[in-house]
């Protein structure tokens, strides 16, 4: 046979290679799409560990069905995220899609998944529009939005610390917009006057010019670094190297001081504040049980990303269990997930609102030096039952433009009056109550 004919036949054979989708029946397939490489690799890895713990505790079996998980890495690239989501949907025929570590990654995949009739359970991706302006009923997010803890944080700083002016330097994409937006609303509502906002491209490694241009004589009470991952480690190190923390205290967004990145930061930042939905010294039976199991399995402490993933995976498994393992009707599966009782969630009780978004505790935390010489996020105060709309009326909140580079405004004087007044604001209780 001619070599060319042979080559053609090989080519034809390659094309005929069947898609490796396997028959449904005894197994249920969950796709976990996340960033296991790239700037947020640490979050992606911790997320995976939390999900695996939940799966192992269930023995990869629910209602007699085997749970098969397919992991896909999107390298924190939105285009790659859509490509991998396609693979999970079209080739692997996943019954549920979960994972998603970053804001735009979630929005991109959410936009692709619309109309696919498959439940999407974002674990750590926190852009609020996914459960707000771009929401559709197949999205279930029992975790958080960026604004949720930050609105509480800003309000608390203005109210109890008396801060008036904040200088915020943030990563230029949707999740920090949302975190910064929540912060501005809470801070200005609580009595703050200004949140000066500077954005930088992701990722950045040299912050000297950004740090060098922070004005020292204009009465800023704190510098808020609104970024995370390898960017946060670099920023915090350089902030300390420039001796800035002696001049203006540094505070962070929810992820800035998260473990394990905190372990790479200099100890000069002890006493820095942040707000999140977990704290490293939570001491409830549910948290301790989860933390001990996690430490036993992975040999290090869990982070918020691990806890969120653990909770999401449990929600998925319990939803499947409620459906007795029958996942053919995806709308019914979503309904079953909505009905799951999440009062035993390790970080605190969680309920879902009408957009399938979490209503839960927010903790204000402070970086503290532990007895073992390692820093951790110590809980200070708690706000209960915080929704993604904060203390605002839903209609008023939804009427505002989506959080972006320039919205909401930086100055209290430019903020719409309806965003400075609420019927009932947060009540803070001591941490642990």
């Amino acid at each position, binding site marked *: 046979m001619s070599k060319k004919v042979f080559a053609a036949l090989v080519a034809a054979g390659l*094309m005929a290679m069947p*898609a490796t989708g396997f028959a449904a029946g005894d197994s249920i397939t969950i796709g976990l799409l996340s960033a296991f490489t790239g700037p947020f690799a640490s979050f992606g890895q911790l997320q995976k560990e939390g999900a695996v713990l939940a799966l192992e505790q269930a023995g990869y079996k629910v209602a007699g069905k085997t749970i098969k998980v397919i992991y896909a890495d999107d390298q924190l690239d*939105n285009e790659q995220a859509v490509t991998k989501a396609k693979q999970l949907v*079209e080739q692997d025929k996943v019954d549920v899609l979960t994972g998603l570590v970053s804001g735009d990654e979630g929005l991109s995949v959410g936009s692709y998944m619309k109309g696919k009739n498959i439940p999407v359970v974002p674990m750590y991706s926190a852009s609020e529009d996914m459960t707000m302006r771009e929401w559709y009923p197949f999205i279930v997010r029992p975790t958080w939005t960026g604004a949720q803890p930050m609105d509480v944080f800003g309000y608390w700083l203005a109210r109890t610390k008396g801060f008036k002016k904040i200088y915020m330097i943030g990563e*230029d*994409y949707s999740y920090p917009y949302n975190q910064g937006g929540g912060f501005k609303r809470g801070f200005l509502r609580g009595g703050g006057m200004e949140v000066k906002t500077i954005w930088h491209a992701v990722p950045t490694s040299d912050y000297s010019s950004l740090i060098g241009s922070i004005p020292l004589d204009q009465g800023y009470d704190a510098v808020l670094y609104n970024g995370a991952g390898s960017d946060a480690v670099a920023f915090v190190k350089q902030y300390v190297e420039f001796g800035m923390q002696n001049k203006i205290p540094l505070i962070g967004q929810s992820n800035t001081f998260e473990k394990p990145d905190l372990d790479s930061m200099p100890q000069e930042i002890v006493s820095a504040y942040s707000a999140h939905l977990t704290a490293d010294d939570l001491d409830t039976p549910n948290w301790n049980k989860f933390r001990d199991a996690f430490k036993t399995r992975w040999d290090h402490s869990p982070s918020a990303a691990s806890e969120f993933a653990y909770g999401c995976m449990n929600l998925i498994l319990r939803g499947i269990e409620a459906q007795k393992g029958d996942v053919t009707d995806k709308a019914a599966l979503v309904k079953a997930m909505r009905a799951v009782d999440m009062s035993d969630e390790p970080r605190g009780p969680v309920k879902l609102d009408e957009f399938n978004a979490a209503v839960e505790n927010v903790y204000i935390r402070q970086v503290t030096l532990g007895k073992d010489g390692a820093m951790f996020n110590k809980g200070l105060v708690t706000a209960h039952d915080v929704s993604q709309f904060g203390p605002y009326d839903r209609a008023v909140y939804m009427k505002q433009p989506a959080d972006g580079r320039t919205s909401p405004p930086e100055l209290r004087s430019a903020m719409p009056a309806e965003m400075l007044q609420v019927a009932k604001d947060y009540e803070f209780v001591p941490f642990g109550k």
Partner: protein
Amino acid sequence: MTTEATRHATTIAAAIVVVALVALPAYVGQYTLTTFIRTIYFGFLALSVGLLLGQGGMISLTQTAFFGLSGYVIGLLGTERGFPSPIPELAGLAAVLLLAFVFGLVVMRTYGTVFLMLTLALGQICWSFVRQNTSLLHGWAGIRGIQPPSPFGLDLTQHAIFYWISLAAFGFGLLVLWRLAESPFGLALNGIRESPRRMSALGYPVFWLRVTAFVIAALYAGIGGILAAWSSGIVTPTAMQLSRTIWILLVVILGGAAHFWGPVLGTVIAVWLDVLISQLTPRYNTVIGIVFVAVILVAPNGILGVLEKIGAAGTGPGRWRRNLFVPRAAEAAPPTHGRGGHT
């Protein structure tokens, strides 16, 4: 085997491949089809690089900028401003032609390393611009929610229809390139590759021929960019970033830059390698990197170069070979890089 028999066999083989490709939606799964669509839009990009490299001997690192540009234009005009098709698509291609013409005026005054560095700089400027422009292009997040249009009532959201349209466009694109290679323009380009000075002395407008080649190549990248944006529904700075630029260059070399079918073969292999290996190991980028390094070390003329050598042992030079990247004289000379082993 006689030359005639070889030609006969080649025709039969080609017919089999064409039928297999057209009938593909009938016998493969949805994801295989999606992967073929990816192969086609990256194939356009590879043809863009391959045309300049194979025909003109120019290594351009700007082609991904054109690939991204057309996607951004349809996202901006179609998805965000709501202009009806085909206005965004035509505007996208027009933008690509215009930018390629302007860039061409600059870069085509140079050769060799200077050309390489200039195209690198222009490509990086485009990438930095889209990455940092958040007011219009949404920076790192890009533009999402791009939908393919429905020309003549064809529903491009259907995988099979999208595939057939892409395949037809690709087939047409290949045909045009084939004719181009045989045309006086193509031959002049080959002449410029070998010796611009001699071509100039013969009276050829070397500068304008090179600019024209650059614009044509950019058009191929632009078409690929539109298909990519329609297919993935999103356009981000990734489309233009340096790693993508290097990747597509390696893809072309992998297939065989000196051969007409090299860019196509390289794309098919690279895209499928990515899909298949990424299912096996999380370290798939390492594996793919090793494959690229190995090919370039062992077979700098690419896979088609190797096949040609094997074929040459029995049946003489393969007929499929059209355009030489490596000049014949240089090819006949012994390898100079010291590794040896493939003469």
